């Protein structure tokens, strides 16, 4: 719990052994994005659209957003609004911020998905409870697996 929580966010950082130019060409080109994000509709420019579908267990949702920063070999930001089948889309977007920094022969890739605290309380609550319901099911399965192991 040492993390700051001025904003609710997910932050990841990793070093990839390839130069920023190489990473950028994969990260932020329409062709490259298919290699890591999956099938995507994406316009590689500031203000461009980005959409893709996410399958997560039984949940299936559509993500759409807009490129808010496009700075070659430095940073790609885009908004992230979820639209789950049968539901209204989030009324407020979150934002994904990916930045690159040369690190020797490699690149430090930092990804921050931020702004979850901006979701209206009722949406966040719905999402959170959906997550808890899913978690509950996993707990049951884990408990079952543990029992079987003991048996």
């Amino acid at each position, binding site marked *: *719990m*040492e993390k*700051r*929580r*001025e*904003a*609710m*966010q*997910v932050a*990841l950082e*990793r070093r*990839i*052994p*390839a130069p920023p*130019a*190489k*990473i950028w*060409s*994969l*990260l932020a*080109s329409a*062709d*490259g994005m298919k*290699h*890591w*994000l999956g099938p995507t509709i994406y316009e590689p420019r500031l203000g461009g659209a980005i959409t893709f579908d*996410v399958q*997560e267990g039984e949940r299936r949702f559509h993500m759409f957003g807009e490129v808010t920063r496009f700075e070659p070999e430095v940073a790609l930001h885009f908004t992230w609004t979820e639209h789950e089948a049968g539901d209204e889309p989030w009324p407020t977007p979150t934002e994904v911020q990916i930045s690159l920094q040369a690190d020797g022969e490699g690149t430090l*890739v930092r*990804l921050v*998905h931020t702004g*979850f*605290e901006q*979701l*209206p*309380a*009722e949406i*966040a*609550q719905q*999402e*959170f*409870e959906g*997550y*808890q319901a899913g*978690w*509950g099911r996993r707990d049951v399965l884990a408990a079952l697996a543990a029992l079987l192991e003991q048996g």
Partner: protein
Amino acid sequence: MSIAAGPRTSALFDALADPTRRRILDLLRRHQPLRAGEIAARFPSRSRPGISRHLRVLRRAAMVRLVASSDRRERRYEINPAPLQDLDGWLDRYRSFWEGKLDALEQAAAAGEPDQGGQKSKYPAKP
């Protein structure tokens, strides 16, 4: 999980929706436990009753709790970690989603997937 769905979850998100309350949580995380007066002193631009109101909202959401000092002469606020840990669990969905995507990015970089400018070198022109 420790949070019941329903009103309490709603209180949790209402509590987090306000930037002053998030700053109070952040302050407590670093300096707890603190008396109400000590918390208010960190927000000179806010009225004392205003800060009290925020503390009440945080308490109702079970994000902070009041603990009595050992001599029972004063009560101080500290963070109740459970709701925030549950929230971390929620965000873990996104964390693992992005971990997977960064794995894929790393693999693509290692596999030498053609970049836009590199397409030509993969299909060299015949002499």
